């Protein structure tokens, strides 16, 4: 009887334990360590999600080729959320509960990352976010969530200040998307308008998903704007530049890093030549970018290599930081140790952006920004000195 009771108690206990990852060492076997990720791999945002996941794969392949993390090979578990928030939450839960990931990378877009924050916090899993750095993710700092990158606000302020200094007393135009991203761009722009006393002659707002910018660009032309901040992401910026080309006007144009990917330049054609962008990852045309591509080539498939863009670099850097932290925990890494080591991350060189650091209570790497400029002849962005 006691034997049955003991068995039943054990069974009951195991069922209860299955409700959450109470053992910090989940996702680790003698030979393997599981790292999970949830990204938009289908639909329009896949351009970013797929690229980021390729970055993670490159860092993981690099580590595995060097023998893994203290002898354990890294297994990468990737889930598609289609950029739908409810599915991001389910994807993260699957990766943690079913795939038993030891740590997380990613995760999807800004809204999606914000929504999964309670899940990540409750689980306590070490997480490095690299796709959409927004303040909510590190303010207030969460114990187990680290963010590699730079805030959208800082990025836009840096770009507008640069363009303002380079083009004094010029008339400005701005167009933004009607979402969180657009508001951030506008807020950053407005803060510099006050500081630099910019003369804004056109300020537009477009609905997310808008494809036709003919009337918006006509208004921009009529306003006489000489410097233009294109607040679209990918298709929108392409459509705007094509319209400006048709209207035969070429203001000094600045774009933001979510749309700063090489295929965009190709689609913009000559209209995209000379546009300015701001970013915290190295351009592929620079020495660091070329070295990264050389490193990536043997580690990914041909199709994946073609999908590389700036998000691959940010993904790569985040994965490097995470792998390095787990590695420092030695033969028996735990969540507590990994989080502690992530916190101790100091000037970690990744080769694709400035050295990465966190600290006690600091969960945001606050990357250094640089201005780059499009060169249509080589379909690349080059650093501006």
């Amino acid at each position, binding site marked *: 009887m006691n034997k049955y009771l003991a068995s039943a108690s054990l069974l009951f206990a195991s069922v209860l334990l299955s*409700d959450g990852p109470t053992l910090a060492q989940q996702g680790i076997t003698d030979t393997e360590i599981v790292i999970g990720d949830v990204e938009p791999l*289908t639909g329009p945002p896949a351009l970013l999600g797929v690229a980021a996941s390729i970055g993670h794969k490159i860092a993981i392949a690099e580590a595995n080729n060097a023998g893994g993390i203290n002898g354990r090979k890294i297994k990468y578990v990737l889930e*598609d959320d289609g950029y739908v928030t409810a599915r991001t939450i389910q994807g993260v839960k699957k990766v943690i*509960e079913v795939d038993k990931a030891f740590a997380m990378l990613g995760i999807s877009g800004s809204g999606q990352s914000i929504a999964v924050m309670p899940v990540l916090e409750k689980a306590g899993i070490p997480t490095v976010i690299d796709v959409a750095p927004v303040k909510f993710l590190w303010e207030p700092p969460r114990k187990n969530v680290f963010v590699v990158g730079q805030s959208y606000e800082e990025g836009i302020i840096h770009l507008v200040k640069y363009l303002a200094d380079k083009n004094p007393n010029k008339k400005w135009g701005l167009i933004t998307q009607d979402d969180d991203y657009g508001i951030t761009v506008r807020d950053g722009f407005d803060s510099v308008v006050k500081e630099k006393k910019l003369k804004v002659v056109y300020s537009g707002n477009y609905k997310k998903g808008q494809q036709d910018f003919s009337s918006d660009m006509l208004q921009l032309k009529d306003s006489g704007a000489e410097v233009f901040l294109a607040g679209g992401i990918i298709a929108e910026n392409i459509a705007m530049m094509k319209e400006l080309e048709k209207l035969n006007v070429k203001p000094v144009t600045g774009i933001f890093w979510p749309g700063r990917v090489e295929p965009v330049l190709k689609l913009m054609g000559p209209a995209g030549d000379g546009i300015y962008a701001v970013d915290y990852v190295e351009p592929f045309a620079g020495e660091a970018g070329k070295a990264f591509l050389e490193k990536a080539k043997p580690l990914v498939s041909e199709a994946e290599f073609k999908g590389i863009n700036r998000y691959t670099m940010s993904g790569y850097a985040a994965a490097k930081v995470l792998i390095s932290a787990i590695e420092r925990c030695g033969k028996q890494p735990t969540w507590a140790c990994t989080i502690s080591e992530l916190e101790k991350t100091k000037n970690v060189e990744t080769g694709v952006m400035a050295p990465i650091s966190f600290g006690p209570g600091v969960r945001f790497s606050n990357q250094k920004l640089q201005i780059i400029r499009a060169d249509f002849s080589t379909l690349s962005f080059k650093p501006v000195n």
Partner: protein
Amino acid sequence: MRTGDYKQTYGELVALVDSPPVWLWSVVLVLALIGAPYALNAYALSFVTIILITVVGALGLNILTGYTGLISLGHVGFLVTGAYAYAILVSKYQMHPLVGFLGAGVVPALASLIVGAPSLRLKGLYLAITTLAFSFIINTVILEARTLTNGARGIAVQRPELFGISFDSDVAFTWLCLGFAIATLFATLNIRRSRVGRAFVAIRDNDTAARVMGINLHAYKLLAFVTSAFITGISGALYGIYLSFVSVEGFPFLLSIEALAILIVGGLGSALGAVLGTVLIVLLPEATRLVFSLFSAQMDALFSTGAQELKSMLYGLAIILFLRFQPRGLVGVWHDLRRTWVHWPLRY
């Protein structure tokens, strides 16, 4: 020998269930759902939660489209309105969650009067387009009313505490959703068997005949909109709490299509159909993934990395197959099975 399931009195005809064993099985199912959170991990439990939230929304749409025959392509508009109403009242103005839930029902119900008014003159495709336009307008209103809604930045929503019980954990939140799903199911079943429900069905079957019978089309069509929007708004509040963050991005238009797919697959005009349709549509991609993963790890990976495209294809395929081979939906399959069981070995 039992030769059929005959209803001999009016009372039997309007009874909630037609036999005591149905009550028994229903109680067993509810007990199983109450116990489920203890046996399931967080991922599996998230499916149960999503199913329960979706059941509430699908039952809401069923009142309008299933019972009354008014097609709505814009129900996501009521869903997002309900979510925002709850978030604004509870997160921004620190009101009691019960007030939040009441607001989540009342605000979409009031909004439905705006959409419902054209329904008095429009039918079919024209009404569907009107409701579709409403869902876009409501998104724009939310984005522009920044002082109230935080615009595109959205509003963070905490899990509620009701009657001293915290629903912060996934287990407790699932129970909360279960409570709402059961209450909604009872409400819609009771509406269906009431005078109001019969008026809805009469309008769906032939609105001219219904008017001749003395049914006030204007009043009942508006009532159908208001009731449907109220329930859908509650579902929106639950969905917003589940997401922990309410923004228009969290409520894509695809949700309206999914809701219609649920009703078609489940069986239009049936509360049981709405429940069965929800279970099938929510679990279909995961069940398919599990089946394929038994054969090959590559197929499993394909479902993980191309999940959303495959899910859309599966939804489409399910709708086509049901429309072609079983237009009465899952509830039709269930009725056929039950009849076969009762009449066997006879066919009729």
